[in-house]
């Protein structure tokens, strides 16, 4: 093989390997790409010097190594990204839980007010409402339990409970504002709203409904925030108690 053919083979092999390097995750390529290319360059130079050409066996070995190591690096990178995401969720558990609860509130409010509007008074459903609030408080306690971490910190649990409660309540109230104003004709058929409107000083149902929402914002947000703090702290304290009673690991 002439020197020119040698150089051409070397350049072509390096180009192919540089293209294969793009298969690796960006971080790995950035940290090790130039070193890998240099090592490959050294290897090609020696193979050409000793064998005269790069045979099929050489390229099969390179391909097998690339496939194996790309698979491993990509899997490692995915696992690291997943871990980072889980850590983020753990750190912002109150926000994530609040958004999920808020999403659930949107579905329930739209279904119960627009899709399947009730023609009965809310007083008919007192037991259902009480159970609903009990379930919400249990969720706040669970949020506090999860967010308090190991070892359990009551402040972290209370904070997560409060954040989740405030966020979910704010989303719920915003949904009521949109639903009540967009579907006033439907919402205005509710027994409680008709009765309330007739005994109120307001001239239109829209004014009555929106004034009620302002009251709800002023009343519900602090109340639910306080409930979030209290039940979040209860959840965190429960975890602390369980951690205290668990046998110490060796």
């Amino acid at each position, binding site marked *: 093989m002439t020197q020119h053919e040698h150089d051409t083979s070397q350049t072509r092999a390096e180009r192919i390997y540089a293209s294969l390097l793009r298969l*690796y995750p960006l971080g*790995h390529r950035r*940290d*090790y790409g130039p*070193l*890998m290319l*240099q*090592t*490959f360059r*050294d*290897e090609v130079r*020696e193979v050409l010097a000793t064998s005269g050409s790069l045979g099929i066996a050489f390229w099969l*070995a*390179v391909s*097998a*190594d*690339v496939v*194996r*190591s*790309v698979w*491993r*690096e990509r899997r490692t990178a995915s696992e690291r990204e997943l871990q980072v995401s889980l850590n983020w969720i753990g750190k912002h558990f109150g926000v994530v839980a609040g958004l999920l609860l808020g999403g659930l509130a949107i579905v329930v409010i739209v279904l119960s007010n627009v899709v399947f509007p009730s023609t009965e008074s809310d007083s008919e459903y007192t037991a259902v409402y009480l159970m609903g609030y009990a379930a919400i408080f249990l969720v706040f306690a669970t949020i506090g339990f999860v967010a308090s971490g190991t070892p359990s910190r009551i402040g972290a649990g209370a904070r997560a409970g409060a954040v989740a409660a405030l966020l979910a309540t704010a989303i719920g109230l915003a949904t009521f504002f949109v639903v009540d104003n967009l579907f006033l004709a439907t919402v205005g058929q509710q027994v409680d709203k008709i009765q309330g409107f007739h005994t109120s000083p307001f001239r239109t149902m829209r004014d009555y409904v929106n004034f009620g929402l302002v009251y709800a914002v002023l009343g519900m947000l602090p109340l639910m925030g306080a409930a979030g703090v209290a039940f979040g702290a209860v959840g965190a304290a429960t975890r602390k108690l369980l951690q205290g009673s668990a046998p110490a690991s060796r």
Partner: protein
Amino acid sequence: MDEHTLLNTPLSPAVFYILLALAGGEKHGYQIMKQESHSRVKMGTGTLYGSLKRISVERTP
């Protein structure tokens, strides 16, 4: 990785042979690969740098 886990995690053959190659002093990538080719393990460039990364990330105290 905590110290207990670190001490109880077996070395992969690639990592073992890299450490063996480096025991004799500093070497560049292809020198390590060449040394490996004399042993049972045939290591490619991708495996070499993947293993070096794992040594530096997971096994640095």
